[in-house]
């Protein structure tokens, strides 16, 4: 999806210094690959999550946390939460998150901000494109300073529902900041790539749910990962349950506590108090991701009154439950939209700042079966920092394509290459289990893009001999077993009274995924297999869904080979 115009700057591959950028409404990050491994770069303030904020005071420009601090003193010259406005007309933007900062304005349809960027005398009207350019320029400068080399190019991660117009506007804003955009990639895919590029990662066919829980929005995608190729099966976007809503829960809580001591002084009713309340609430929220207690302390919160209190994590999780439940429903909803079940999900990647929250990860843990990996810091010590997934993925992609000619990138990412047939049903081979029942063993997963080639080694019957290789299609269904109403077990009663506590849980029905054997595609015979031998089966599906099946004894000579006609 290289957008037209990305090459306006005419940077040649050998001049390039490319980085990855995650450009959010709340925070942005920059990353580069150093010796093939991605590193998220800290800006001059030492921040790796750089608030996406641009602020002016006395003609001086500030970004990141310095700009964020201005929200208290100088909100009207501080621009926040503008990224989604790129490429949109005024009619279709949601200005909610700009309320306590510079308000977006309608300049003949173009979203703009009136900012005193040259001192106090006059105000300029800055389009959202101009604001973005200025902000991106600062990001690039930080990267250049860190790398000691002029950054010329970038891969930028964008939400999957970013429209063509928004993508074009982002590329333009970057180009205006002298930054060549090598490619815009979808945020969930950047996160998946960050995990898949780890040296210890195994190339496996799996279904991944990527939950990107950010500041102002939550985006969830169901991704089929097949032989390292990624296909998005479904997405959901949510603006009602995100980081700011957790901030809001804490703001209300602290405000109410404050008002218990100071009746009739509501810190939410004064803009400056509100800004302080918000900043400190967000800080407390982040602390609660690490510790079990957080301190909330603001000097002169309202009417000159200082306020200090602590909150423990349990309390927080109780008052924020509605928001947490919202995340669960969002994830369940998108899985359903993909026509899948939680049992079909192999991995859940938690990405975005809000994904640091332990409770969200543990809620997902209980939503999914034990076999599903939940990639979050609190459930998996090897998980990658969720705030770094997108910039890392973008940097990895940048390093992969920076040597390409611009024309080549455009052609290689062309829709003619990305639009391909996907197999509908799984393809596999029939095996027999110990009790003699036939079972389906998957070789190629459903939703695999073609061409595709997969090989398995399957045991032959113990004594060897002639074996049947029966290639079939397979499907799954969810088998629900209601627990037998448990007869009171009196036998162990007097000895062991300890296990009556989990009776509630045992009432729950048991759900499992079972394979159904579908139509037979082909049969082949491998003859004279040695005792204890194994049989290799390779299926190669071509673009037109014709297939070649080869099978032979592992280590044996010759073998059987046959073709299936195109579908």
């Amino acid at each position: 999806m290289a957008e037209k115009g990305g090459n306006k700057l005419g940077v040649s591959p050998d001049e390039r210094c490319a980085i990855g950028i995650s450009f959010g409404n709340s925070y942005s990050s920059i990353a580069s690959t150093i010796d093939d491994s991605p590193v998220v770069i800290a800006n001059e303030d030492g921040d790796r999550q750089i608030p996406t904020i641009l602020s002016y005071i006395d003609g001086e420009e500030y970004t990141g946390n310095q700009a964020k601090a201005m929200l208290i003193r100088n909100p009207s010259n501080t621009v926040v939460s503008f990224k989604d406005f790129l490429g949109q007309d005024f009619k279709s933007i949601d200005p909610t998150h700009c309320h306590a900062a510079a308000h977006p304005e309608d300049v003949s349809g173009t979203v703009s901000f009136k900012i005193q960027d040259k001192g106090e005398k006059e105000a300029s009207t800055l389009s959202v494109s101009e604001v973005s350019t200025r902000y991106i320029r600062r990001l690039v400068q930080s990267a250049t300073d860190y790398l000691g080399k002029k950054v010329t190019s970038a891969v930028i991660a964008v939400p999957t529902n970013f429209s063509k117009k928004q993508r074009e506007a982002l590329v333009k804003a970057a180009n205006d900041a002298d930054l060549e955009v090598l490619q815009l990639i979808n945020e969930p895919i950047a996160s998946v790539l960050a995990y898949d590029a780890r040296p210890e990662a195994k190339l496996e066919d799996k279904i991944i749910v990527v939950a990107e829980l950010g500041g102002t929005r939550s985006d969830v995608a169901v991704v089929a990962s097949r032989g390292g190729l990624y296909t998005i099966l479904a997405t959901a976007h949510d603006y009602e349950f995100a980081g700011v809503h957790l901030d809001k829960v804490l703001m209300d809580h602290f405000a109410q506590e404050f008002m218990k001591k100071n009746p009739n002084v509501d810190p939410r009713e004064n803009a400056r108090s509100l800004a302080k309340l918000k900043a400190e609430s967000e800080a407390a929220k982040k602390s609660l991701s690490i510790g079990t207690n957080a301190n909330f302390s603001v000097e002169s919160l309202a009417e000159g009154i200082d306020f200090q209190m602590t909150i423990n994590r349990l309390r927080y999780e109780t008052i924020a439950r509605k928001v947490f439940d919202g995340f669960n429903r969002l994830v369940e909803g998108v899985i359903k939209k993909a026509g899948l079940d939680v049992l079909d999900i192999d991995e859940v990647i938690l990405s975005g700042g809000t994904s640091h929250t332990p409770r969200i990860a543990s809620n997902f843990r209980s939503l999914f079966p034990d076999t599903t990996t939940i990639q979050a810091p609190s459930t998996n010590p090897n998980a990658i920092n969720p705030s770094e997934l997108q910039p890392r993925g973008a940097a990895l992609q940048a390093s992969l394509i920076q040597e390409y000619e611009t024309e080549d990138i455009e052609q290689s990412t062309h829709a003619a290459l990305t639009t391909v047939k996907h197999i509908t049903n799984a393809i596999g081979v029939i095996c027999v289990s110990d009790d003699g029942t036939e079972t389906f063993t998957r070789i190629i997963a459903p939703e695999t893009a073609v061409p595709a080639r997969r090989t398995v080694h399957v045991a032959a019957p113990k004594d060897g001999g002639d074996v049947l290789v029966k290639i079939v299609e397979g499907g799954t269904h969810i088998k629900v077993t209601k627990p037998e109403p448990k007869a009171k077990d009196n036998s162990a009663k007097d000895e062991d009274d300890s296990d009556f506590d989990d009776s509630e849980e045992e009432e729950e029905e048991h759900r499992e995924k079972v394979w159904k054997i579908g139509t037979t595609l082909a049969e082949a015979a491998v003859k004279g297999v040695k005792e204890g031998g194994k049989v290799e089966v390779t299926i190669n599906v071509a673009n037109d869904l014709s297939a070649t099946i080869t099978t032979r004894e592992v280590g044996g000579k010759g073998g059987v080979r046959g073709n299936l006609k195109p579908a």
Partner: protein
Amino acid sequence: MAATTTVTRSLPALPEGWSADKDFKPITKITASSQRTIEPVGPHFLAHARRARHKRTFSEDDRIQAQESAKKIEKDDESDESEPEDPMMLQREAKDWKSQDHYQVLGITKYRWKATEDQIKRAHRKKVLKHHPDKKAAQGSSEDDSFFKCIQKATEVLLDPVKRRQFDSIDEKADVEPPSKKESGKNFYKLWSRVFKAESRFSKQQPVPMFGDANSTKEEVDNFYNFWYNFDSWRTFEYLDEDVPDDNENRGQKRHMERKNANARSKKKAEDNARLRKMLDDCSAADERIKRFRQEANAAKNKKKNDKEAAEKKAKEDARLKKEAEEKAAKEAEEKAKVDREANKKAKEAAKTAVKKNKRILKGSVKDANYFASGDATAAQVDAVLNDVDLIQGKIDPDEIAALAGKLNGLKVADEIKGVWSGEVKRLVGAGKLKDGEAKSLV
């Protein structure tokens, strides 16, 4: 994909008699696929692109064509059409949120309790884009944000599952009034179906059995009424609570209000249960299916009874007839036996007489033949001939006697008579009944 998976479960043995050309038997094609977009990201994609592209270049047209054939993942929000906004509604104040129709505020009255969370969120976003006060201010109109607050309140209620149920519990606009007797006449099933469909939103147990139509089976109808007479409803009436004072000063007052609310809720709940019960009573009373099933059941019951009686009667009659027949047969058999016996006796007597008569003929014949003597027969001659006649008579049965008598009857010439006798003796000797030389006098 280079890595090879290993499976420990084993392949089946080749069935006896399996054979195929080159040991491979193709059977069907792979099921048709869908076009999807793979993400142009990662080393494996680049390898794919290299292979697939093979120095080819693609035009913008190719792009458009390819994109059109791909399955759409992102849905544009434009797709749901907006409901017109009632100007009166736009005048609302958020403080009156209790009386506001949250679905109307978000423009999703056509869904109401059926609206999915996703639909509510999208509806909210659309309203925010339109009514955000900062936008209105930026466009120079008044900074009145009261309707925007109504929107926020509606969303807050509808996105909170607990609050949403409280609101849905009292959302009268989602109610479907039960039809009156008159109305329900022709459209009985259609109208009542709607009523129960609306009512089913309160069911803890989902899915809820359908009302069905005239063709529903008895089992379906029974199942339906059983379900509804045991309806487990989550409907609550908190939403109609009177405000409880928030301050701590007036604890007594607060507790009083809380108690009042709790009472009001349970009263309303009881009324609601009674309403549902009455509705079910009304519906079932007018339900032709139930009447029909009852009639059918009665008819079936009567039929059974009648059938049983008829069967009993028939059995009795059958038994009677059988007995009569048996008696008659016995009597007939007896009579026949008697007749037979008599006939038998007569025949035997007749046979005896016949034998006597025939014997007389036999003896008469030898007498007529003068005992085969020329001149007067001596007593010895007579004796010998009569002894031999007796001998022969003793060897042959009455039929043979009759036959012999037949041959002899009317014969007067001695030689002819002798001829017959000697023939008879010869016959008997031939049959081994007489020894050669016996009955000499007759030869």
